[in-house]
């Protein structure tokens, strides 16, 4: 198994309420688009992994992998969002927990952790493709780039 890096969780009481802590995002790129996942949902960031294909599973399911003795289902985020993968390089992945199960979201690249002001979050533009609109909870305008906040529950609602 390759190296894994555990994300240091921001201590919750730093800014008090849970709501504000949720405004810390792990950024990642999917098909060239910058996206963010609330950091509290993230359990691990993984490098390229050996993934076992699961026959007959839906196309979005890339397979399953072994994370320290736990079996994690890998979801190909590019497929899920319907975009082409930017490079052919093996994907990195972000492990999230959803309803007691671990899922690993395969992405092109995992970036830095950003603390963003909740007030800066904007509604999805109505013209956004329906599959993106269904999976996103809003947009942040960053300097020179837009960040799409992914709704993890919706992404995993396959």
């Amino acid at each position, binding site marked *: *198994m390759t190296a894994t890096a555990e994300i240091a969780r921001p201590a919750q009481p730093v800014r008090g309420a849970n709501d504000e802590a949720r405004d810390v995002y792990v950024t990642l790129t999917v098909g060239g688009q910058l996206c963010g996942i609330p950091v509290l949902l993230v359990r691990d960031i993984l490098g390229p992994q*050996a993934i*076992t*294909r*699961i*026959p*007959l*599973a*839906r196309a979005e*399911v890339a*397979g*399953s*992998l*072994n994370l320290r*003795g736990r*079996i994690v*289902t890998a979801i190909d985020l590019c497929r899920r969002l319907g975009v082409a993968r930017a490079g052919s390089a093996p994907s990195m992945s972000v492990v999230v927990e959803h*309803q007691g*199960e671990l*899922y690993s979201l395969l992405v092109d690249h995992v970036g830095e952790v950003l603390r963003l002001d909740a007030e800066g979050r904007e509604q999805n533009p109505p013209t956004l493709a329906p599959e993106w609109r269904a999976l996103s909870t809003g947009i942040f305008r960053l300097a020179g780039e837009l960040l799409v906040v992914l709704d993890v529950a919706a992404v*995993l609602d*396959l």
Partner: protein
Amino acid sequence: MDDLLADFLTETNESLAELDTALIRLEQAPDDQATLSLIFRLVHTIKGTCGFLGLPRLEKLAHASENVLGRFRDGALVPAPGAITVILQAIDRIKLIVAGLEATEAEPAGDDTALIGALNALMEGGASLPAPAAEPLAGGGGETPAEPAAGSAEATEANAAPCPAPSAELVDSPVVPGESGVAAQTIRVSVDVLEDLMTLVSELVLARNQLLQLARTQANSPFTVPLQRLSHITTDLQEGVMKTRMQPIGNAWNKLPRLVRDLARETGKRIELSMHGAETELDRQVLEFIKDPLTHMVRNSADHGLETAAERRAAGKPETGRISLNAFHEGGHIIIEIADDGRGLNTRRIAEKALAQGLVTEAELAQMSETAIHQFIFRPGFSTAAAVTAVSGRGVGMDVVKTNIEKIGGTIELASREGRGTTVTIKIPLTLAIVSALIVECARERFAIPQISVVELVRTGGGSDTAIERINRTPVLRLRDRLLPLVRLASLLALDDGEAQEGAEAFIVVTKVGTENFGLIVDRVFDTEEIVVKPVAPILRDITLFSGNTILGDGSVIMILDPNGIARSVGIGAAGAAERTGLVETAKSAEVTAGGRTSLLLFRAGGSEPKAVPLGLVARLEEITTDRIERAGNRLLVQYRGQLMPLVPMDVDLDDPTVTRRPVLVFSDGGRSMGLVVDAILDVVEDVVDIQLGSSRPGILGSAVIAQRATEIIDTGHWLALAAHDWFATRHAPAGGRRPHLLVIDDSAFFRHMLVPVLTAAGYEVTAAETADAALRLREQGQQFDAIVSDIEMPGMDGFAFARAVREDPRWAALPLVALTSRVADADILRGREAGFTDYVAKFDREALLAGIAQVLATRRETEAV
């Protein structure tokens, strides 16, 4: 020591220890209801259990104590120190007796009358409330709650005074041993703790496997020796922890003797239950799962399997029926046999039932073995009908039994001989947590197959003697004297990257599901490995081919195949051959539209164009050597299954000396068989039969496009008639204009398949239903027809009742109704007309049928025109 007694002692010792502290607590806080209830419950349990075990001395004492405690609880007596003392004395006496029991397995002799007297006096004292002061004996009970804290020695003495006798005796009582022998030997541990331990050990086993795998790749590693030790310890630990969860199967059998006794009483039968191997141990979790199925099967045996004493005598069997339970270990599994020497399954009834429920066609049934037919009792809903259970038995909920057994990775088999009895054999894994699995590779992916389902491995191709053969494109394997159906795992899992190379080396995992074997074609076979089954993620649960997943020794994730799921998905299993053909599907849905898809057998006979016949009509395909054909007059005959079967060559030149073997389509109807000799069997396809061109040639209904080729649909009736002279062969001219829509009702699949093409060819649109009920459902669905053709003798609602039902409802009341029967007598015709039939036609008279239908339709048109 008796298990029950040992359990009782353990439990009682625990209760007694708890009682001591609870009583002291009560003395300090007399109005603590929770403590009071606890004490009452503990003493009550002791009393109840001793009654059950037949320990009179203990029971009397506990009973008297319980009475007093009951009054405490009701508030009629106040638990003053004096009263508590008496109770404590009683508890001490109970301990004494329990100690005696432990030592000698019998109650020690002794006299408790004085103590019981004191307890009773206490109770009655309370009973005389609310005049406590007047009653001297109520000294303890009479104390008002105002002075409960007066738990001083003085008060105790004062209260103890009214009962001098017991205290005197108590002095003589030897001190109760501080620690009980039994209590020290067993402790109670919560099941959760054991489950957690098991999970941890499972993980440890996995980690150990990974380490071993790593170590194997490195020669002379300094870790080898300590790793070996670790491995041994892990194995021992695993066994140890497994042992903590093990229980003798006898625990699941405890209730059976009573159950059988009660059933014997109710049914007036004589039944002897013998149990062997009760000490066989298995995992607690597994035990829980099989408890109900076992009880169910024993009940079935007693209730339905065994005959009454009179019936048994008549059958020349001993009057007392035997049910035997047998459990033993075999190769990492537990085998449990439930056998009875009763009447066995009634194959004929089951077959009839299966036919009536549309689970199978008559043609298929004709080819099924007894064992295969017996499997129907495992079909959901099959047995709920009283008809089967009342006569032949067994059944209610056998599908549930099977599902439960399969849920824990077990298998169930049934062997029955009519008049001799039935044996059900259950094979279950020792534990659910860790299973042994065979690791195979297919399309460069690895999969685990639970060892319990694997019968044997066969290597094919690549220079080995055995080879996969193909019938059309379906792979099969000749395994000893049987033909084994094969399933390509790669195709099943959609892992195919193109067609498999012919003759390449492959392995066949012969897998057993129920009584059926099938082979899974895989590319490679690795070792067996102990795996820990983990459930798959929720988003994968809909894939029924996997029963779980696991992590292998090398750290990779692997999917575990579910042989039952695979069998179901390819139509193998308890269903018998039924679900494989499209025809059964359609028969099941109770209506077959001529425009719907039908399974057709394609063959060649006289000419290059393919011919087709509904597969449902063909009972068997045979190959005969031409020298076996005998001639009698101008008829051709062959000896077939002990009978002479007429053969009809279909434009085939039987005198061609170059051909020595001929394929024959065998048609069976009731006891009759006939063989149609053809040139070659081509294929079985499922397609829409839409006869576009009528034919003037006898024996051909017309042409249809089947599998993209113009194909002649043969008129089975014509060929049957040639062999059996039962059929009339002229074709009726198709009616012009709009195709009138007919509803045909016949319970015989054979005739349905027969009539639909005939009527379709005659220019009608045809819907077929197999029961009157199904037909009436079509009415509820608002379907309209131009005429109805119905059989008379049908199970359930017969033709007469159906006719009345049709006439009663305005929707179909005006429809012409043609009765179809094999029996034409004047009385029947009269009865038919009374019931509402418009016309009456003999079943085998196609000419008359077509004429009759044309006539009733014409009459109707005239009526409507008026």
